[in-house]
């Protein structure tokens, strides 16, 4: 009897947790598939009618697809830059003497702690000076800088787990240090790189502050900016906002479903060893 009550209690807690996490999101995003009258109805109509009118309107009148393209280009490129640089750095930090590596890592991590506004002004001025406002590179480069600390941290932990014997074996076989890195280490680094890439991409995809600042041209704006600044003629266009939100979160939800184990390991590994 006692065991049954325990299990029941636990099951209730799980349900509560799942509802807490999912319900608000589902309630909102399901509006994307409702009809206009359904969205603002009281009492609420839980089940959407399955209408795609908001998607049409969002694409046609609010330029969602443009935002989507911009986000993809910016987040994708920034992620590539980050993991290219971050992998080498993470590897180097894993092999340098511990004390030195820790200090450097602390310095790198500290860069992630600063309030965006402290760097926003000067970066904006710099980009204006270079003529890079409202360009892709104007956002990609700062994003790389913002995602590097986390990526480097994760990758350094990953490479630390990799035994040095592998490189030693390669070098005994005749590789230089660089050669060992290229031929042996990098091919094996796929899991760690993948995790770092996912986390960096999610961060870059969701970033808002700098995107708001740097991209003022609607043709160049990313999804978060688009969603935040959604304007309707008379009322708030919830349906379209929900549709846009659906489009922007769909890849993320997919990533979470497919890669949750990686994501959890990546984030929590940092926490204990940090």
């Amino acid at each position, binding site marked *: 009897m006692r065991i049954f009550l325990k299990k029941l209690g636990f099951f209730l807690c799980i349900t509560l947790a799942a509802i807490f996490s999912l319900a608000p999101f589902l309630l909102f995003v399901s509006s994307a598939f409702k009809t206009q009258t359904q969205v603002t109805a009281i009492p609420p109509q839980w089940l959407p009618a399955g209408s795609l009118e908001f998607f049409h309107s969002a694409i046609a009148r609010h330029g969602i697809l443009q935002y989507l393209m911009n986000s993809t280009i910016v987040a994708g490129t920034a992620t590539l830059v980050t993991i290219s640089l971050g992998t080498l750095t993470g590897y180097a930090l894993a092999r340098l003497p511990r004390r030195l590596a820790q200090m450097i890592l602390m310095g790198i991590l500290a*860069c992630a702690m600063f309030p965006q506004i402290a760097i926003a002004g*000067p970066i904006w001025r710099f980009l204006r000076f270079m003529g890079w406002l409202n360009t892709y590179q104007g956002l990609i480069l700062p994003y790389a800088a913002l995602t590097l600390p986390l990526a480097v941290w994760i990758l350094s932990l990953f490479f630390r787990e990799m035994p040095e014997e592998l490189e030693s074996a390669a070098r005994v076989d005749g590789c230089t240090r*660089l050669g060992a890195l290229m031929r042996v280490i990098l091919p094996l680094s796929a899991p760690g790189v993948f995790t770092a890439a996912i986390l960096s991409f999610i961060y870059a995809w969701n970033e*808002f502050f700098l995107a708001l600042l740097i991209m003022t041209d609607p043709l160049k704006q990313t999804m*978060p900016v688009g969603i935040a600044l959604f304007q309707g003629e008379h009322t708030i266009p919830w349906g379209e906002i929900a549709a846009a939100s659906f489009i922007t979160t769909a890849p993320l939800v997919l990533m979470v479903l497919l890669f949750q184990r990686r994501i959890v390991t990546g984030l*929590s590994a940092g926490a204990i060893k940090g």
Partner: protein
Amino acid sequence: MTRKDQSFFLTLLVPVILVLLLFIAAPIGQSIFLSFHRIIIGLPQLKTPFVGLDNYQQLLTDPVARHSFWITIIFVATTTFFELLIGLFLALMIHHHFPGRGALRACVLIPWAIPTVVAAQMWRFLLNDAYGMVNYAVFGSETSHYIPWLAQPATALVAIIIADIWKTSSFAALLILAGLQVIPEEIYQAAKVDGAVVWRRFWHITWPLIRPALLVALLFRTIDAFRVFDIAFVMTQGGPADATNVLQLYGYKKMFVEGWMGYGSTLSVCIFIMVLGLAIIYVRMVGRRLLEASV
């Protein structure tokens, strides 16, 4: 490790160090520099004179800034407390092995994964005063009783706090989960054999051993909470009547909406110093605790 090896590795670090210097360190330095000047964007003919500590003096007497500071403190304290609490709850559940654990984990990750602006719009929708589902849940169909959450100062702050708690509890959960996963299962078995029941196992074993992870979570969350922007921008734009005018939002308005880059930089520098101070305090505390409780 030979000299040659070390220089090889250090060379690998150069690109990243450069990027970070260029886009983070240098800007911060520049912010500090700019904070001593009077700059108005959009009026270049006024030049940018050096005004020493004038901006800082202005900051000290700026009532909006002071209000903003307190609003932010309240926000930080409340969200951090609840997020750690809920995060602990979630972490304990995810840590347990049960069928469907993966599904729960995925559910919990979703608030973390979606853009903050989407979460903000979502809560804006749910807290709407005419058709928001939160109002419906509390008051049923009597729309006349509905609370205009985002139009009243007190409830507006509560609203953004709720939104942040929903969004970030899962991140806190993940950090705490890390701490839970380090505790060897055998210790719980020994405790069971020693006669400890569930809540006693939590109090005597789990709680002392996850304290380091809790502190790490506290550190990250507090620092992040100070930087809140997206939620306030989307949900309330800082209003009504500056009730949710958190520090970074105020700084953004001053710097990029009104164009006061010098003063805005001053604000930025102050926020930066506060966050830095917090980080230092925490690192001191966490460092000591980590040494004490290491397994």
